[in-house]
């Protein structure tokens, strides 16, 4: 939606900055916008540890950049980007910031006012909510200036055959019949998170991350992709030259749900020159015993594949 609405802001020769760790959702829309407007898409590189290369970012910021879009947390490596610092850097050049918070809202404290970002978005299903539902936060002045991206019912103020004036926020961006049940379910999901307390969730998941990382590191040939000092409870890994698909298939047989492949971040995977990874993610409902079970299952599958 934002990429469509930015069409009247981005011009030929302008630059849009993203990072090398973006999910396709925060890459393809900007890339397509750049194609359409003959603008340049530039990519901030990452270090071997999986952190954003902040010096490189500094060198890429300029008045030519009309937008900086990046993930709060990498869905592949779990890296938590220094969002506040990055936003402040961008603002020095008057660049608006779009943060993809899909991986963050259920695993970290997010305060958009404190971050001071222009936009922050996330999907409900990454926070125990329903699919097909999401949130876009935007500063009012920005949202007022953006064009609607879809036209239809409810989003208009007056209509004649000659012209249409659009409704005020947020209706201007909510054409058609709203997904009421999705919104209600999403609100409930966030109440669930609030009831447990994001602080407690972070503490619990950090402990699982630390424990699982320790246990994984004991395995011969283990390679963890993404070793940032500041990460959430996501561990992407490879063992020796075993294909992630093989490990994933066997883990699946033992009832361990991991994701394998490129995790919708193909450029990032290509960056590491690997066929993909196995990714174990720990959430609020996981336990230490489950980490033990996962490690046991992993060792069993490695024995079969050796």
């Amino acid at each position, binding site marked *: 939606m934002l990429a469509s609405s930015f069409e009247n802001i981005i011009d030929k020769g302008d630059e849009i900055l993203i990072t090398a760790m973006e999910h396709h959702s925060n890459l393809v829309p900007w890339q397509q916008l750049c194609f359409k407007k003959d603008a340049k898409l530039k990519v901030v590189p990452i270090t071997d540890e999986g952190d954003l290369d902040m010096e490189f970012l500094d060198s890429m910021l300029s008045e030519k950049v009309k937008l900086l879009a990046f993930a709060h947390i990498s869905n592949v490596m779990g890296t938590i980007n220094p969002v506040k610092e990055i936003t402040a850097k961008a603002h020095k050049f008057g660049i608006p910031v779009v943060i993809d918070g899909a991986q963050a809202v259920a695993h970290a404290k997010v305060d958009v006012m404190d971050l001071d970002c222009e936009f922050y978005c996330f999907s409900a299903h990454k926070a125990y909510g329903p699919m097909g539902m999401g949130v876009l936060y935007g500063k009012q002045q920005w949202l007022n200036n953006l064009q609607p991206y879809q036209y239809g019912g409810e989003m208009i103020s007056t209509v004649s055959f000659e012209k249409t004036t659009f409704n005020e926020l947020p209706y201007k961006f909510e054409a058609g019949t709203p997904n009421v049940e999705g919104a209600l379910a999403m609100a409930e999901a966030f109440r669930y998170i609030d009831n447990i307390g994001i602080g407690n969730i972070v503490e619990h998941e950090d402990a699982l991350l630390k424990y699982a990382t320790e246990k994984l590191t004991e395995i011969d040939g283990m390679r963890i992709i993404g070793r940032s000092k500041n990460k959430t409870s996501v561990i992407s890994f490879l063992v020796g030259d075993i*294909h992630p698909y093989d490990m994933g298939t066997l883990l699946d047989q033992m009832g361990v749900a991991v994701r394998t492949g490129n995790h919708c971040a193909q450029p990032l995977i290509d960056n590491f020159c690997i066929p*993909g990874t196995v990714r174990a993610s720990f959430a609020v409902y996981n336990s230490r015993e489950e980490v033990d079970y996962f490690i046991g299952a992993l060792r069993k599958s490695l024995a*079969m594949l050796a």
Partner: protein
Amino acid sequence: MTIKEKEDALVSEFEMFDEWMDKYSYIIELGKEMPLIDEKHKDPQHLISGCQSRVWLNAEIKDGKIQFAADSDAVITKGIISLLLKVVGNEEPKDIAGANFGFLEKIGLKDHLSPTRANGLVSMVRQIKLYAKAFQLKNMNQRN
């Protein structure tokens, strides 16, 4: 043996396994027996799309029968394609084009593959059939 007979033989072979682990160990072993694709054919043209791991498949016709050769960078995928080739290898294009691969369900392989992986299996079957249909068409054109 006909395709159907080969399918039945595999189904009874798999019925001997009580444990899923044995089943998978067997699939991995099967991969080692497969006719390997020539290195020069490991190119984008022979790559099957829709698979999470890379799978290359080539087919050539010899005395009216199709000879398949394949490879994959994942050993389980390699075993699965080997299983398929065991059934359709050295068969006539029309028989392969008409095969329904019902044995995959009977040996419980389809349930054991998650949605994206099952898509990979579907892609492999589709590619095998595409080759068969292409050779069938070529035969018909030659006859005309």
